[in-house]
């Protein structure tokens, strides 16, 4: 794998939230990630852009501590991963909605919150606040199987946020969500980021990548470029993210 085509000056250590160093992950004979380096700063919205099958989900699972790399090291908030107690500081939203369809939204939220040790009046307030934020207030007591796809996605996000994590890891958060709701979710991610929450988002949608503070382009298990959207576009000499991606992708293969 060639060196990233574009590198930004690496930020000072105390500023780094997620640090991935020479990480390789192999499943059987298939090399899913090879020698990946990544540094995500505290409080930024960082995007992982790449086609499906590029290794985004594998990388995200490694960062959360759900999986172990074959080689390399991952640190989250300075702590080497995986660590069980770090799950309390991460909010994770998987690609598919992991919800209990038989239960109501409130029951789902209460269940996951209780796994983080939340209870009582504080929990009630938190659920009410999240329902307001994600426009689920009127549907909190409906069983999830009556929910639309977009509502399920919002509920998944609410569950990822319920314990007020310092790091938010979202795997394709806006798949199957209408443009209006997508905009409102990004608005919320902005607000969280402004409050100091680090947000890591995977996507394969180019225009969504533009909304990130910085992003890494990932292809065939390697980072092919990393920088701000403007930096990447400029380096590729193109106008759009799509052109930039094709440019770096072509350079890497």
């Amino acid at each position: 794998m060639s060196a990233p085509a574009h590198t930004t000056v690496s930020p000072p250590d105390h500023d780094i939230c997620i640090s991935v160093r020479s990480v390789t992950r192999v499943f059987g004979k298939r090399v899913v990630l090879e020698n990946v380096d990544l540094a995500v700063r505290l409080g930024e919205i960082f995007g992982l852009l790449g086609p499906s099958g590029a290794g985004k989900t594998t990388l995200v699972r490694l960062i959360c501590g759900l999986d172990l790399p074959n080689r390399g090291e991952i640190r989250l908030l300075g702590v080497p991963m995986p660590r069980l107690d770090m799950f309390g500081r991460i909010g994770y939203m998987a690609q598919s909605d992991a919800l209990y369809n038989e239960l109501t939204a409130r029951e789902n939220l209460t269940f996951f919150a209780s796994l983080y040790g939340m209870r009582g009046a504080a929990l009630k307030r938190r659920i009410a606040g999240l329902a307001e934020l994600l426009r689920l207030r009127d549907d909190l007591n409906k069983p999830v199987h009556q929910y639309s796809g977009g509502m399920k996605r919002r509920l998944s996000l609410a569950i990822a946020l319920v314990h007020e994590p310092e790091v938010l890891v979202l795997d394709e958060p806006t798949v199957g969500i209408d443009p209006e709701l997508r905009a409102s979710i990004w608005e919320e991610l902005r607000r969280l980021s402004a409050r100091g929450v680090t947000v890591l988002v995977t996507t394969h949608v180019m225009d969504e990548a533009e909304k990130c503070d910085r992003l890494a382009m990932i292809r065939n298990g390697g980072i092919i470029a990393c920088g701000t959207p403007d930096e990447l576009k400029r380096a590729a000499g193109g106008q759009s993210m799509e052109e930039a991606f094709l440019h770096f992708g072509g350079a890497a293969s």
Partner: protein
Amino acid sequence: MRIRALALRIIRQFWKDKRTLALMLVAPLLVLTLVKLVLDVDDIAPRIGVAGAPTAMAETLAETGAEVTVYDDVAAAMRDLEDLELDAVVALENGRPRVTLEGSSPTRNAAVMRTLQQAMRTLVPGGRTVEPVIAYLHGSENRDLFDFYGSMLVGFFSFFFVFIVAGVSFLRERTSGTLQRLLATPLRRWEVVAGYLLGFGLFTAIQATIVVWFATRVLGIALEGSFGLVLLANLFIVLSALTLGTLMSAFANNEFQVFQFIPLVVVPQVFFCGLIDLETMPEWLQTVGHALPLYYGAKAMQAIMLRGAGWGDIAADVAVLVGFSLAFALLNVLALRKHRAI
């Protein structure tokens, strides 16, 4: 054309699922082999204790195919009968033979009676035989096959349905992605298993209770021991089914594959849970039985329901069941490593 395309797709799909393929082809052979091994057996040689009777009687019984032990006094023979060392004791009482049958197994009762009648015909060729007095240590001649098999089927059906439901529901937790989501919280792996056992345990406990109640009170299966003890034994049987079911679901990718475990895991247990007399099987096959939880469960159920066994008699079997359950749960905790490294 469309039909051909469809057929080809199904064949391709099926070919890729090697396990389903193997199950369809191999499992019937396996089960058929088991049935043959189990049913293709010699007659049981009844074990008869002879106490205070003429040696001619002991000799004739032995010649007609019984395993005969001669005792000096009746009390010693009765003790062995109590300990299941014997199937029957023959003694002379006022010049008439008195036969005490152990009574809990109809097949063994029948074998004893058959041998006895044959022996009597040899001993008294004239035809005018002395009617022996028949007594039962447990139960009576009114006991039917259902009483005998029922005691084991109670445990078996409790086991079977808990196994299926536990397996499928734990699988659904996985396929719906919620297990993955659960593991992205500070929950420990053993906590996942324990939580599942606890939550599910409630329903299985209810199931075990209803089954025992229905079998003894509604169907009227003979119950010589205490109801509470049967319930306790059944609860532990169901616990082993619950832990085994959730463990097995870790090795299935869909509901269909959970059902594939029925012929592999559940059916063999039927053969070894006492429906068929274990001693008629080849020794290596008996050893297989000892590796299955239901063997111990059925043994305890049988002891309580047919022979009125107390806690002391079944404690060892219950301990083995608990051991199995712990091992299955522990293995499940390890199997969850597949989904989260720590």
